[in-house]
Each structure stands twice: as C-alpha cells, then as structure tokens.
C-alpha cells in the first residue's frame, strides 16, 4: 500500500466524501440554495400556468354559451314574427322558449324574462318580441364582458408564464453558476492534493534520512529509497515485514519505540539497523504517531557521528594520559623534594630537580603541540604566505636545531636549488624543525642528517633524511597520526610529544602540498614534502646552490 500522508488522507476524505454524505435536511452550501430555489420556481411556473389555463378554459365556455343564447334568441325573434301567420310556428316558438329557459338556468333574471315572454305570447306578441330583443341586447352585453374577461385572462397567463420562466431561468442560471464554481474549486483542490501527494512522495524518496511507515503492530507499510539503502534491502523486502526484523537496541533499558508511541508521544532514541548482509548501522530514530494510528519512523545514519565521538573520546583519553605522564614525574619529584627524605642525599635532590624541570619542559611542548594541531586541523590559523627562499628557511631551521643536534652528536647538511615558494615562512620553519627534530631523535651518534630542496614541476620538494633505524613500510602512515609512533616508548625515550609529524603534515597540507615517507633509501628514513613554487621563480631556476653546514663538530 503506498504511503499517503495523513493530512492528505483527511483532505481527500473531506473532498471526496462531501457529495455522498450530503443531507437533505441541512443546507450546507450555496448549491443547495440554488437547487431549491430553482425547483421551487419551476413548480410555481407550472402551477400558475395550470391555473391560467383552467381560468381561460372557463371563460371560453361562458363566451360560447353566450353565443348559443344569443343565437337561440335570434331564432326565437324570427319564430315570433312568423308565428303570427301559423299556429305551427307558435308551437315552435314555445318550444324554443323552453330551450332558452334550459340554457339560462345560470341567469335567473333572464329566466324571469322568458317566463314573462311565455305569458306574453298568449296575447301580447309584440311585447314578447320586445322582451326578446331586450334579452338579446343583454346577452350581447354579457358577451362583450366575457370576451374582455377572456382576453384579460389570456394576457395575464402569458405574463405569468413569461415572468415565471424568466425567474426560473434566472435562478437556474445562478444555481448552475454556483455549481460550476464549486466544481471548479473542487477540481483545483483535487489538483492541489495530487500535486501535494507528488511533492510529499518526492520529498520522502529524496530525504537524506530513512523513512519507514509502520502500522500499530509495527509492520512496515512503506519505506523510502534511503531506508532501502541503509538496510541494504529492496523496498519490497521491507514492506510487510515486522520492524523488529530491521531495528533493534543493544541497550536493555531502551525497550522499543512503539510502546511509548501508544501513549501518543514523539520519541527519539539510538538504535541499531540490521542490514541484509548481517552488518549493523547505528541510527538515531525519531518516531511520530500519526492521526490514523500509523507511525512514521525517521532513521538517521549516525555512523560518522559515532566515529567522530569515538575518535574524540580516544583523543581526550590519549591527551589526558599524555598530560598526566609528565605531571606524574613532576608531582613525584616535587613531593620528594618538599619532604626531608632526600636531605641526606644531595645528588638525589639534584636529580629530582632536573627531572622535574625536564618534565615541565616536556609538558609545555606537549600543550603547545596539542593546541597547534587542533588549530591547524580546524583551519583556525591563518597562514601569511609570501614568496620565500627555501634556502633561508632551511638554514634557519638548522640553526634552531643546532643545540639539539649538538647534544645528540648528529651533523646536519643541506642543499637547495634556487627556488621561490609560496608559503608562510614561520610555519615552514616549524615544519622543517619538526622533521629535523624527529630525525635527530632517531639518528645514531656520529651520523648525518641531510636536508635538500629541489623543483619538481610546479612544486618544490623538500626532503629530510636520517641514518637511523628507519620506518617499516606498514608503519609509515601511522607515524603521521597523533600520538602514534612506531614504538610508543619513543615519546618518552626521545622526549617527543607524538604530535610533531602530525603538525608538520597538517601545515604542508594547508599549503596545498603533501607529505610522505620515501622508500628510496636503504638506511634510515626520508621524509619528503611538497610546497607550491612561485611561477616567476620557476622561470629563473638556476644551477643548484650547494651548501653544507656542519652543525655539529663531534667532540
């Protein structure tokens, strides 16, 4: 079942569910009003039309009836004239009078006149004839009145039908307009919903974190691509499976997210995602219960964070140990000096004083190096790069290291091409000092350290070579790591902090160069690094300027 966000489902149900659930007892929209008014108008038009038609039919019948009366009166008048001649006609006249009585049952005054006419026929035919004429005149007047009434009825019916039709059409037009607008809004809403669904789906699929949708029994209903990537399974292998097949916790007190979710809490926690190949990935989970009871689980791969935390813990542990080591000697020596237990042995007192001073110096170097390496790695130190002559830098570094090399009985020689590099002179000197210091520590007495610089393409290559015990190939990367040495006792035996080479490489890398241990020497070790050359100086490269400085005259 594809994942549909809860709010979208709600929106969908509102839109799609409104039509079938409409109640006739409740007017809920302008469409309802439009329909009701339109239907009412149509019914009204129909009723008024029926009433007008019925009225018109009644008026017509009265007109026809009046015509019939008038016609009979005409015949009666004619018969009366001719009745003077024959008795037969008189009988016909009486018969017509009888018919007229039947026709004028709706008009009592006319019937009274007919009764009078009947009496008059016996001896006063002339009066009877006048009476007939009077009746005819009255009927003709009645005909006029009824004809006008019929015409008025016709006109009224036409006006009612026209007005009602116009009204009905108007209301129906309004209703249709409202319906059209409402359907338009629904189409827009549905389109927006579809677009929202598509966007949500896209967001889910492109999310940097894994997203899983699970039901109330913690069965996976949906998963995005990142979830499949983290779990190393296809989406089909995830959907339908219980969440516990992929996620577990190593902490016995952690429980699982779903029990907490039943109380409606958003919960977070660190868990372990189990991949298809059996390996695990640490993940941070944020689980949210949705309105429909499903649970959205966002899982973030925190492998890198865990590794950084581990390295940080390790660094803190190592730094703590490294700081405590000279402090232990200082504390111990000063504690003994402060007591009276060494009063009888001046040589031991002197030795403890020297030991405390040496370890204080060692501590100072260590603190400085720790601060340096952190600042270099974080990029907090700005390099003041200028055009530098490597010969001056090497010469200066050798001078700085002269006392150390003297004490170790080691000579330092250097050569350099006429180069111009783009570098921070102080930091380059620090790099060279660190490398020469390292070489001195591992050089046997009466040996020589060689420093040389030459161009190689766009870079200057500077190498520091000693004649010491060398570095095994498998340890060559190790020596550049913090507090890592070929033999950990070197830091104490040689007085180093275990950070000098790490600092040197960091400086070189910040200059755009690289540092490595060359494997082209049979004896000792050879540290090389590159620094960008100034192009203008590259064009003026001359013959190598050889210079040798023996910094140690073996005594």
């Amino acid at each position, binding site marked *: 079942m594809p994942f549909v966000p809860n709010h979208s489902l709600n929106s969908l149900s509102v839109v799609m569910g409104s039509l079938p659930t409409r109640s006739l007892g409740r007017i809920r929209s302008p469409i309802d009003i439009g329909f009701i008014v339109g239907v009412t108008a149509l019914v009204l038009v129909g009723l008024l039309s029926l009433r007008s038609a019925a009225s018109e039919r009644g008026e017509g019948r009265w007109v026809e009836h009046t015509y019939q009366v008038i016609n009979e009166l005409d015949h009666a008048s004619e018969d009366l004239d001719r009745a003077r001649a024959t008795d037969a006609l008189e009988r016909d006249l009486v018969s017509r009078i009888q018919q007229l009585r039947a026709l004028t049952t709706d008009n009592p005054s006319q019937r009274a006149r007919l009764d009078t006419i009947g009496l008059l026929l016996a001896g006063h035919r002339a009066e009877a004839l006048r009476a007939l004429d009077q009746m005819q005149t009255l009927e003709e007047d009645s005909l006029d009145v009824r004809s006008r009434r019929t015409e008025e009825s016709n006109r009224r019916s036409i006006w009612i039908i026209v007005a009602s039709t116009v009204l009905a059409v108007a209301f129906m037009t309004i209703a249709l307009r409202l319906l059209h607008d409402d359907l338009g809004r629904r189409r827009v809403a549905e389109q927006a919903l579809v677009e929202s669904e598509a966007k949500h789906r896209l967001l889910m699929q492109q999310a940097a974190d894994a997203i899983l949708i699970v039901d109330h029994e913690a069965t996976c209903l949906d998963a995005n691509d990142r979830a499949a990537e983290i779990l190393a399974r296809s989406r089909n292998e995830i959907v339908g499976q219980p969440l516990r097949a992929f996620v577990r916790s190593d902490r016995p007190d952690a429980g699982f997210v779903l029990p907490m979710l039943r109380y409606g809490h958003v919960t977070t926690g660190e868990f372990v995602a189990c991949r298809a190949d059996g390996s695990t990935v640490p993940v941070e989970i944020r689980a949210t219960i949705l309105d429909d009871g499903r649970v959205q689980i966002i899982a973030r791969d925190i492998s890198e964070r865990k590794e950084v935390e581990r390295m940080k813990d390790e660094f803190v542990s190592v730094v703590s140990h490294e700081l405590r080591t000279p402090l232990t000697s200082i504390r111990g020596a000063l504690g*003994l000096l402060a007591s009276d237990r060494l009063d009888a042995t001046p040589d031991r007192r002197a030795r403890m004083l020297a030991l405390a001073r040496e370890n204080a110096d060692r501590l100072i170097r260590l603190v400085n190096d720790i601060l340096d390496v952190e600042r270099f790695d974080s990029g907090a130190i700005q390099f003041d790069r200028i055009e530098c002559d490597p010969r001056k830098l090497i010469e200066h570094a050798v001078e700085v290291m002269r006392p150390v090399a003297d004490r170790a009985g080691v000579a330092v020689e250097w050569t350099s091409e006429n180069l111009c590099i783009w570098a921070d002179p102080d930091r380059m000197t620090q790099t060279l000092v660190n490398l020469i210091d390292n070489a001195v520590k591992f050089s046997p007495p009466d040996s020589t350290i060689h420093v040389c610089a030459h161009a190689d393409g766009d870079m200057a290559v500077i190498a520091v070579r000693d004649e010491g015990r060398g570095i095994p190939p498998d340890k060559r990367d190790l020596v550049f790591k913090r507090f890592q040495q070929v033999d950990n006792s070197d830091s104490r035996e040689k007085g180093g902090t275990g950070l000098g080479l790490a600092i040197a490489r960091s400086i070189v890398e910040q200059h755009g160069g690289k540092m490595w241990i060359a494997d082209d020497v049979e004896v000792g070790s050879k540290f090389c690094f590159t620094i960008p050359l100034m192009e203008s100086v590259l064009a003026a490269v001359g013959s190598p300027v050889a210079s040798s400085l023996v910094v140690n005259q073996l005594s």
Partner: protein
Amino acid sequence: MTKSLLLIDDDDDIREVAQLALEVGTDWRILTAASGSEGIELARDVCPDAILLDVMMPVLDGPATLEQLRGDDRTREIPVVFLTAKARPAERDRLAGLSVSGVLAKPFDPLELPEQLRITLGWASV
C-alpha cells in the same frame, strides 16, 4: 622478612620517581622493569611479593602483561596493582574488574604511595 616489589613502567622518569619514593618510604626491595616482557621475565626469576604495573605501555600493555603473569604457574599468585594515568572512571572500573588487587592513579603523591600500596595489598605497616 623484607618485601620485594616489582615496578613495571615504560616511562623512565616515572619509574625513577616511583622507585625513589618507595625506597625512601619503606624497607622494601624495589625491582624495576621498562616493559611488560622485561617485567614478566623478572617476575618469573625473582617471584616478587607484589607487582606495581603500568597500564599503557607499548607492545605489551598492562592488561596483556597481567594475562601472561596469570597464565604462568610461577607468577599466577603474585598480587598485582595497576598504576594508570587513565582518568575516566569507566576505564578504571574496567581495570579493577581484572584479577588485580587494586588500581592506583597517576599522578601519585610520592609520600603517600607506600601507604596506598600497603592498604591495597593488605600488608602490615612497618
């Protein structure tokens, strides 16, 4: 009878300070070794009454040295006290969980170190 204690620490200065502190504060015979392997050899030879063992040492660290000591009949019963610069309680708890008599911290007070060892090892005061 004079007690003998073997001090194993790869740091020359600490070894020197600790040895001096124990020599001036007790009548024990103090033996020293600069590495785990050297300490194991010495322990097998002289069977000291106790061993004060540094934790972080190259090649053979404190726990590895302890394991070898416990695996040898000649050194299995020798009480061992760790001396460590590890500062975290969790690390010290882990060390205390090994088969040692106790864990002492660096830096140490040289005047109190002998008494701390006596208490840890259950030795009577001189």
